[in-house]
């Protein structure tokens, strides 16, 4: 499905576009690999305290690609990631998908502005995005009737934003040779 989406995008490729390079086979592999690693990191067992503060790895990856390769990873990519996350952690099917699509839309809408910010400034924007995401999940939990309201719910947002420079460093470095 992803591949098909990516191929569709390539046919409508634009030579002047910055992120068109990411639609190459190598760029596609980068996207796939980073997504898989994020999925693994989401459920790797950790001590309880670390588990409570576990950053939303997959969301960070989705934000990164929405900012840097929006042409290849459209909203469909974010949506599929959300569905996989729903299956992975056993939440209501569609819950994470909806939140992911919302964040990817916001990130894509502001991508040119956010992309030129210094990385720490970006981290603040990412913090805002994660808070919106967390609130979305919290809100849906509340509607379904199982919301767990505690300050602990918001810790991963903070930690996720702190990890943003790391994500940018790693992915920028790994994609440098195909840019």
């Amino acid at each position, binding site marked *: 499905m992803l591949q098909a989406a990516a191929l569709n*995008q390539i*046919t*409508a*490729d*634009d030579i002047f*576009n910055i*992120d068109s390079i990411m639609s190459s086979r190598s760029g596609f592999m980068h996207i796939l690999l980073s997504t*898989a690693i994020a*999925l*693994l990191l989401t*459920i*790797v*067992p*950790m001590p*309880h305290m670390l*588990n*409570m503060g*576990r950053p939303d790895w997959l969301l960070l990856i989705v934000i990164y690609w929405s900012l840097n390769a*929006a*042409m290849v990873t*459209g*909203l*469909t990519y974010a*949506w599929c990631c*959300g*569905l*996989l996350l*729903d*299956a*992975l*952690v*056993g*939440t*209501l*099917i*569609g*819950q994470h*998908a*909806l939140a992911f*699509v*919302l964040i990817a*839309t916001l990130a*894509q*809408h502001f*991508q*040119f502005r956010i992309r030129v910010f210094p990385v720490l400034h970006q981290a603040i924007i990412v913090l805002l995005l994660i808070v919106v995401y967390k609130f979305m999940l919290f*809100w*849906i939990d*509340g*509607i*379904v*009737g*199982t*919301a*767990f*309201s505690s300050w*602990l*719910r918001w810790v991963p947002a903070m930690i996720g934003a702190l990890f943003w420079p790391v994500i940018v460093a790693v992915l920028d470095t790994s994609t440098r040779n195909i840019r």
Partner: protein
Amino acid sequence: MARFGSDTRPIIGRGPSLVARFLLLAALSIGLMVGDHRNHYLTTLHNLLSTSIYPVHWLVDAPFSATHWVLDNLTDREQLRRDNARLTTQVRDLQVSVQTLAAVTAENQRLRELGEATEEITKKRLITQIMNVDLDPLRHRVLLNKGQTDGVFKGQPILDAHGVFGQITQVGRYTSEAILISDPEHGIPVRVNRSGLRTIAAGTGNLNQLNLPFLTGEADIKVGDLLISSGLGGVFPAGYPVGIVTKMERNPSETFATVEAKPLAKLDSDYEVMLIWYQPPAIEPAITPPSAPSSSATTDSTALKSDSTANAKTPAASKNNKTKNNASSSSTKSNHSR
């Protein structure tokens, strides 16, 4: 999106705008959520997704189960000898305490036949491992390494060596997801072993605490009482230990007492748990009772049973509705009150 630069795609061949795509996918997600929450229509989709995500679960769990397997296979002779001695002693002790059980079981059966109450039958047990993956830390769910291929079904009760553990909520092809009795979404019909008082023990989100929200100040319950599953509700078999009452506070100004219990099952440290298949006692008696009084008793218990079935299935939901009616519709508020 008329704003310059907000759309990265070329003008020719660009599909629907960003907002249109967002609305489409959002509507699709909401549709899925409603379908999943309301009617559990999406079994096929659930199956597909859980099967496609299985490699991730497997990959994360593999190092741990491999370590476990290696340690299992590398136990030395001395260790085996010690284990053997210990287990032999344990089996002898258990056999001694079981000696009287046959007589008691037979007597129980006789009494049940006298009272025309059918007994439930445990048909099959299956030991299953909890996969070493971290699901959502805010919800008490675990992933088990048995699924559809082993005959696991939704709503199946799970026990551990010490008491009731939880029940199955989602069945995948090779894995299944279980909810612990301590999850705030879970409620289990229980009976106080000493007084026979029936109530519901709801999870709190704390692994070491259950709440008994529907007990009045006059209820015959005290600290140290053993709670056992009552068998009402049709999910859990009757008579298995659930928890020990740890706190009982009567507040004269409130209708309900504050009662808390500690689960007996080792919810946080279990590695292996047991799935059981059992036949709940028939609700409709096979033979119509001959005498009038016993017939009325049967219908009474039937009504009670079906009533509590409905109750047990949605304790959290009904509780939620209650709080919602009391304190506006703010979700944060209703959650604080829990």
